[in-house]
């Protein structure tokens, strides 16, 4: 998973969870699992991804499946960047 580390960095930076970064891997659940992962967090992560990778994320790409785990988000990032 090419963008796993980038994804973990962005999620932890945005949610201010840097001290727990070591616990994050592809299987870490996001939406409905992390209490910090509310709708504002989703939007903050989308914006951070757009800023970081210079891509545009469309409305219909914002889905529960994408934000299910760190791994699904990393795969989405890869699809947007490559």
């Amino acid at each position, binding site marked *: 998973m090419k963008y796993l580390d980038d994804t973990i*960095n*962005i999620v932890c*930076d*945005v*949610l*201010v969870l840097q001290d727990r970064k070591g616990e994050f891997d592809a299987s870490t659940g996001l*939406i*409905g699992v992390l*209490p*910090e992962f*509310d*709708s*504002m*967090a*989703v*939007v*903050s992560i*989308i*914006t*951070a991804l757009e*800023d*970081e990778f*210079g891509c545009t994320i469309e*409305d*219909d790409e*914002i*889905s*529960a499946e994408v*934000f299910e785990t760190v791994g699904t988000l990393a795969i989405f990032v890869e699809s947007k960047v490559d």
Partner: protein
Amino acid sequence: MSYSISASYLPGQHGRLFTLHYQPDRPAESGICILVSPPLGEEMNRCRYMCNLLAQEATGLGMGLLNIDPFGTGDSEGLYRQTNWQTLEEALLLGADKAKSLGYHRVILLGIRVGALVAMDVAPRIPNLHSLIFWQPSISGQSALTQLLRIKLAASLGRSEDAGSIKQFEQMSSEGQMIEISGYEVSPEHFQSLKQAHFEQSIDAVEQPIYWLTTLASAERKPPRAESQFLEKWVGNGKKIEHFEVIAPPFWQVHERTLAPTVIEQTVTLLKEMN
């Protein structure tokens, strides 16, 4: 404690506006009062603690701070659906008058997020305006609106309901409907004025220096491209803008009382130079 806090209501055009005044025990000769131009919706709540922290530091320097909830927001009268660009401006204009009546000689506008856009619009109408300080300003109302609408989309993730789309929300608003975002009803009027607001429209009329703080989550991150381009253009055009990059968490959007002490430190450094 080197300050006192007094709460009161200012008579606004549509209702009373809740006002907090942090008054220094020993006012400095500079006679500066910081007037907060808050962000929108939930971001406003998440920034309260930062404003309180700044007030504690500013009063220690002999400066006052006024925090006024615009009509329809916070503890002021009215409902959020009654908030519009004019009511946001009104809070700042009344705040400037209030600062004068309290004996302050000069005003610094502290614009946070969309509050910076409102501050820019109002700046030419505030006599004795000393300068503007921005915390993570939104330079484009359209981008800020997109962010808000994305929150609405994100809130429906995992539910069976039709999430809709930003295009649909824009259409609904243009047809005169309220758009509800995380419990805040945004009126069509507010929606449209937000959409049209942009730093480009107001910056020419602002003569005072602007101190612009951008937070970065880590040293490896860069500020958004649109912001860098805007700053480059207007600093090149001779505008007095000083830009600071500060490593800090996104305090306006994170749950709990997330603080950004580095933002306060940088702001206090600026305030000390102004005293």
